[in-house]
């Protein structure tokens, strides 16, 4: 009943995947190492930096704070999936335009977190955007440009939907 390894089946970016995993392997090591999805990054492996953020059954979570074996039966989305679906194409475009990324290591986690804010489709102040993103560390940009890019995307979406 208890295992050191187990075969799991899960959906990753819309595709069903079946793999044998070690119980101790966390989700991002699995995504990167077993599936070659290197868009999710490891910055601290103790749940502070947010570089490993992925979507679990629709909600953003820390990928380093979850075992791959726990994802059996779950649906995972990574930045590669969000890119392919076009869900954050406008946000990505605004990131590039506004130079809201430099080294880019935090960017996938930042996008996935921001996508959750955008999904709420409610007006936000810059302070609220900053607060929402406060669990994602960026050493390069100083955050100002990231807040700009998220704010612009939110404004554009709200204008479009109204």
């Amino acid at each position, binding site marked *: 009943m208890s295992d050191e390894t187990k075969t799991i089946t899960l959906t990753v970016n819309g595709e069903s995947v079946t793999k044998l995993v070690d119980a101790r392997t966390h989700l991002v090591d699995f995504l990167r190492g077993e599936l070659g999805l290197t868009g999710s990054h490891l910055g601290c492996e103790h*749940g502070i930096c947010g570089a490993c953020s992925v979507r*679990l059954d629709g*909600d953003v979570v820390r990928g380093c704070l979850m075992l791959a*074996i*726990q994802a059996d039966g779950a649906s995972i989305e990574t930045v590669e999936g969000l890119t392919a679906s076009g869900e954050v194409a406008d946000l990505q475009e605004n990131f590039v335009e506004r130079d809201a990324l430099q080294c880019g290591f935090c960017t996938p986690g930042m996008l996935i977190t921001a996508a*959750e804010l955008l999904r709420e489709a409610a007006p936000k102040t810059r302070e609220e955007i900053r607060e929402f993103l406060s*669990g994602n560390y960026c050493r390069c940009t100083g955050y100002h440009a990231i807040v700009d890019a998220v704010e612009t995307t939110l404004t554009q979406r709200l204008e479009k939907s109204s």
Partner: protein
Amino acid sequence: MKAPKMTYARADSVAQALALLAEHGDGANVLAGGQSLMPTLNMRLSKPDLLIDINRLEDLAGISVEDDAVRIGALTRHAAVQRSPIVAEHLPLIAEAMPHVAHVAVRNRGTFGGSIALADPAAELPACILALGATITVESVRGRRDIAAADFFKGLFETERQPDELLIEIRIPCQRPGTVHAFMELSRRQGDFAIAGVACAAETDGETVTDAKLVYFASEDRPTLAANAVAAIAGKVWSDESRSAAMAALSEDLDPMDNLQGSAAFKLHLQRVLTGRVLDQAIERARAA
């Protein structure tokens, strides 16, 4: 920084989880949201033989009102508590505390019961449920029992829960008319653990606090109920004088620990400042009510 070798079992029922706990006791860790456990595994600070994953125990998740109390299942995610209209209506203290609990990704996964079971002395929720007089239900193969919050927190990451017991739910009395709440904390950065904080549930009569629960966190090894500070103001009309009296009396209630966050003197000072501010806010809310 990779977790040590371990075995894993996914519990598909509470009974199964309890059986595993009975069998493995101290050698097993319950894996709920994992937001505190997983870092210690990755750092190899904890090395359980067995992880018992309870994330599929849907029975343990959910929020409902029963008999003038809100029942929060142990596995309820922080995000669900934060979004809950029931919590907003009946437990405004907890609703006010929730945005201070970590960050969105952690709240999506971390659980209410996990925070209570871990009993981090700097965490918000243990202080809140102590201020609100909650009851914690735990269960083992030996049976189910209720523990008052006042008896639950025993020390640094130490609780009344025994190694074979699983936290099932927390029942928190609904806020009654005539009572007000206030919550404040100081943390260096949004979502960090607090360096000082207080949860306040007060009964008021006009400008007078008749009784109150002031619970301080991020100071001692567990959330601390301040009796002397309350005694200093109970029954008195709120004034600069009673404010100062409460702040002064706090040193009889609180003996903060020195740690990386700051010295004991610093923390006591901050808690005093918060005492004045939190009571100001409580009175203001009482006036508005």
